[in-house]
């Protein structure tokens, strides 16, 4: 048997040749690539959920109809679910909140703070 190869890092190797960037700012391209990969993983998860639902249906455990027509049965479930959405969105859009906080209370840079601390 060969030495086990590090397939995780090998999988993401770059091909030969400098990579073309299409946006003026490479940061935009970087973010797009990461976002698309996450978008893909969400699709993968969605397909897995679909498999699970169909299997549950086939085996007579829970019908897809039951899942499709499901609505929260009481206030507590409703709250739990809405809270999940709220937290999820806040997590995804964290940077915008932080930029707003900075706008409201302009903060010193860490260089400035370091200089301050040097005098403390």
């Amino acid at each position: 048997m060969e030495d086990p190869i590090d397939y995780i890092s090998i999988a993401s190797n770059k091909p030969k040749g400098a990579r073309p960037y299409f946006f003026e700012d490479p940061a935009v391209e970087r973010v797009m690539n990461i976002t698309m990969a996450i978008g893909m993983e969400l699709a993968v998860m969605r397909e897995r959920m679909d498999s699970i639902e169909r299997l549950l249906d086939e085996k007579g455990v829970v019908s897809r109809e039951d899942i499709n027509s499901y609505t929260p049965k009481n206030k507590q479930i409703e709250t739990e679910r809405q809270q999940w959405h709220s937290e999820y969105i806040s997590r995804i859009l964290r940077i915008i909140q932080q930029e707003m906080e900075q706008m409201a209370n302009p903060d010193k840079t860490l260089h400035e703070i370091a200089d301050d601390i040097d005098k403390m």
Partner: protein
Amino acid sequence: MAKNLPPTYDKIAKHDVFPETTHDERARYNFLANLNKHLAHVSQGNATAFKNRVQPKFMEEKGRDFENKDELGDAMAKDQHYQTWSALRRCTMEMRQQAGRSLTYRQAAELKEKVNKLNQGKDSLKLNDEVKVPPYLMAVDNHLMPGSYHTELFEGDVSNAANYDGGLFVTTAGLLGRYSDGGGKAMADWMKANNPDFKPKRILDIGCGIGHNTLPIAKMYPDAEVIGIDTGRPMLSYGHARAMSLGYENVKFVQAEASKLPFEDESFDWIQTTMFLHETGGVSIYNIMKEIHRCLKPNGITMHIEQPQYTDDMSMYEKWIRDWDAYNNSEPYWSKMHDIDPIDLLEKSGFDREQFMQIGAQAINDLDDGTQKADEPEDHGRSPIWNVFGAWKK
């Protein structure tokens, strides 16, 4: 009902050396095939952007139209839609490679063993350490496949070939059929239909890869000896094992370089290449064609399946957008090859000008259930529509 949905990855034809996939790996490929289809539609916006804003703005500023492709390209590079489409397409290619590599390299050792088992003791696979990978293949990783066709991470590693096998189905969204052999099938059908009296005894497929398009020819002509050559060892080992597993008995896989064919003069009735010439180089292409001429028997035929030809009535924009893959999907010879006149190429290699022929071909797709073609925009470099050219040797 939704139209133009790609087949799910599980529809791909399997064989004994085909890489195993988990549920999520297949789902990832399903996502990528759909994304490829979707981007073919997004690419249509490039023509709109060109016509409605890029060209008018240039004409207004300069008081004239574009003089060449470079000028046009510089202007398009600043267009937001073009930037978005390009970045998404590049990203999709890279994700395809990543997804394929992660699933093949995790089972690299098993793949090697499966291939070895089928290849052991067979003289229909001839590997040769002396054969050098040509410099143009060493210079770049074609279609962003790290390690290209020749790299083995350990002795006998076939992972890249396995990645190519499954991945092609995803990149082409299944349009080449279950065995990704729609090109070879179309070629074999054309030959039989148009030359019913032609009974080739020996057929050579140059740059055969894993033999996707070699096998349909071998099937159509079961009495012929069909030889595929390539410089990529993993491609040949994997391709041979694949052919064995699929029950082919008249195919050989030989490690050889196209501009130094290890065959005698006038020893083949038919010499074929498929999606090969555009991955060679500006000097080599002539040497290769001369070798083809040398090895063909009189009254033998050579045929080449290639990207659609650039025609004079094609607009400058059209030619430019078709070059996208050259620079952004690492197919560097793709656009340069379009400057070569195939008639001239054949004539310089010894063929008669009058023997030149050119046909359009479309993949024969055994997965086509009618949901595939409606309103499909042509996805440059992905669509299964080709130019086929060649000549009889007289």
